């Protein structure tokens, strides 16, 4: 990056299964208004807009940024629309960072959303690829075999998925924006039916309406802002091909390469001890154990043991998803930006009830496609 970049404002909506009180534009505007208010800025201060969301089929509006230009305050401003599957919220925020780092823009508004109640997510997430049997039943049907492979490879015991799901709910209870906040017990999860074995109903993310927005600014702007910013130490998006014989879909190479690039650039040698909180993209509980390994927090086969020991809980060594994460709220396109935004709030010290004490470095992470797209950043409380 040519110059320092920081997050100076974060806003998110109330997430729920059906935000019937707002239009698509109203939902997006709720997050945008909160981010601008948080940054102490107005639309006129914004130099460019970077917007992202997952497949347009989710709402049935093609390239909705065109219709949303007014609600975004984008009239006569530069705008780009990003789409990198589930990772899109994160890659969108990173594209805003590029805008500021280029030196051409000082304050960039970035926003990501999904209003899943407008359509049918199960249908929209079941692509029928040419020359391939149409076996996919939504994202869960696609990812369940990876979870099974993880269990087979590492000996991960059957209570790990439920432990992760219970912890996510316990965390979400401390997050006023979360969609699912009702506490649940290990038994509740164990007794819930399999949707796609080994993934049970209560180990599955909800389908949510929600949006997240941030204002990303140059170092000079950030230093003059009303509040302490979150400094972007590093951020990368990597993707890997689909039909490669050597692919490891349990611990994808793109995830490992991306994490290494992000840590190297941020000067982090030992992520387990140098990162104080991580918001990672866990749409199905088992992925939390898988990503702990993929992200280099532990060796292969050790991820589930961290969960078993409870070292990822709120108040423990490395709190994972103190916001409740994707298991508590999943407006797909926004979910990645929520991870990056929550990481920013943690280093700003403004995460409210789910604030982790003394956070210097936080990781925000998202993935998408057939576990092919990875986008992450490390933010810090120091330049």
């Amino acid at each position, binding site marked *: 990056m*040519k110059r320092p970049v920081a997050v100076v404002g974060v806003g998110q909506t109330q997430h729920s299964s059906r935000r019937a009180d707002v239009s698509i534009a109203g939902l997006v505007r709720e997050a945008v208004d909160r981010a601008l208010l948080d940054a102490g800025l107005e639309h006129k201060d914004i130099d460019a807009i970077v917007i992202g969301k997952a497949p347009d089929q989710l709402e*049935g509006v093609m390239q909705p*940024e065109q*219709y949303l*230009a007014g609600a975004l305050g984008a009239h*006569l401003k530069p*705008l780009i629309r990003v789409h990198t599957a589930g990772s899109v919220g994160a890659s969108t925020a990173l594209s805003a960072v590029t805008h500021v780092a280029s030196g051409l823009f000082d304050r960039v508004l970035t926003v990501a959303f999904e209003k899943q109640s407008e359509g049918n997510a199960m249908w929209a997430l079941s692509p*029928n690829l040419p020359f391939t049997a149409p076996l996919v039943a939504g994202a869960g049907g696609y990812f369940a075999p990876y979870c099974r492979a993880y269990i087979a490879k590492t000996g991960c015991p059957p209570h790990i998925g439920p432990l992760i799901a219970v912890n996510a709910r316990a965390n979400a209870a401390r997050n006023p924006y979360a969609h699912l906040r009702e506490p649940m017990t290990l038994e509740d999860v164990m007794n819930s039916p399999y949707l796609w074995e080994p993934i049970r109903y209560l180990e599955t993310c909800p389908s949510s309406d929600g949006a997240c927005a941030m204002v990303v600014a140059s170092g000079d702007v950030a230093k003059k802002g009303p509040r302490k910013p979150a400094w972007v130490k590093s951020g990368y998006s990597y993707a890997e091909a689909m039909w*490669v014989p050597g692919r490891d879909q349990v611990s994808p190479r793109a995830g490992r390469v991306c994490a290494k690039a992000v840590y190297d650039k941020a000067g982090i040698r030992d992520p387990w001890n140098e990162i104080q909180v991580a918001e990672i993209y866990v749409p199905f509980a088992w992925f939390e154990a898988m990503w702990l390994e993929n992200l280099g927090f532990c060796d292969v086969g050790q991820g589930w043991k961290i969960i078993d020991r409870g070292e990822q809980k709120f108040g423990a060594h490395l709190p994972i998803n103190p916001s409740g994460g994707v298991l508590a709220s999943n407006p797909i396109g926004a979910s990645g930006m929520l991870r990056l935004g929550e990481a920013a709030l943690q280093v700003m010290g403004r995460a409210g009830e789910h604030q982790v004490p003394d956070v210097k470095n936080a990781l925000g992470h998202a993935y998408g496609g057939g576990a092919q*797209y990875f986008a992450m950043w490390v933010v810090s409380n120091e330049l």
Partner: protein
Amino acid sequence: MTKLRNVAVVGFAQAPIVARDEHHTAQEMLYPQVRRALADCGVERSEIDYQVAGSADYIDGRPFGFVSALDVMGAWPPAQDLHLEMDAAFAAYYAWLRMQAGDCDTAIVCGYGKASEGEPRRILNLQLDPYYQAAIGLDPVSTAALQASQYMARSGADDRDLAAVAARNRAAGARNPEAQVRAGASADELLATPWVVAPLRQGYLPPLGESAVCLVLAAEGKAETMCDRPAWIHGVDQRIELQTLGARDLSRSVGAKLAAEKAFAMAGLESAGAVDVVELSAANPAEELILCEALGLDAQASRPVINPSGGPLTGNPLMMTGLIRLGEAFRQLSGRAGARAVDGAKRAIAHATSGHCLQQNAVFVLGSDRRWS
């Protein structure tokens, strides 16, 4: 202003635009273009730092269509990557920004999509405001006709003026081996074609087409080693406007005008008339006249030459029409334009658009010499 890097277009390959390639998927159409563009630059994929693509799921007729392109763009081992749900010209703009940020020195930019898999006129209706505008059945031809009517009412341009613009593009397209429509047509012949939606006649609109394109960008230091005559980007800007058709003066493109002013200022270009060649993403003659006005071009003048490729009227593959304009500008400046070469071309403008009625516009200024020392 911030100090900018010299970045150039150094390679471009395009599949000939056809109505329907029934033998190949979008990815199979793209792969040879990636290989040709890299071979043209004398590099392997492993020497490219970054890849970015532009396409649309709704054109593909399925979600995540772009995911399959990772394989043919060369994302193994894993590659730094981004995908925009836009015309791939905006992906080129983003790659340029990334080079300005110092994050990469070389990039491939791909555009793809098989419009023939669906019915674009019905599909593009879904770009409109879902609550108030999509539901009344507007499609891109009917909105373009509203715009053309408004332009004609304000400017006094008539049916014959539109036919003359279309005829000039048709004559040029006959010299472009990759154009879809290669038969010339006179203004009188075009005037005799039936209305699709008045005042737009069949002869004023491009047929449905598909292609696949790959453009290579490189920063100074690398560009010279990859291309004998790089086309340097002197200036670029892009702007979106409100969509709401009733809230805009459709007879003018204030967004294109502003983007041009900003791009010209960055390029140190006094006016559009000072370049040699202009490639506009105008999908009908009224759009071309509106864009000429916005950019400050005299549509009647012999220089700069407007759309020597035949422009979108002779080939309009959705989501890559804009990137093809950038590729055509490169071909003109690098001596690769064949029978359609504009004599002594040293500077060019390439334009891209997105949405109904020129809602979003990007303007690139290119030159055969470096912009900044």
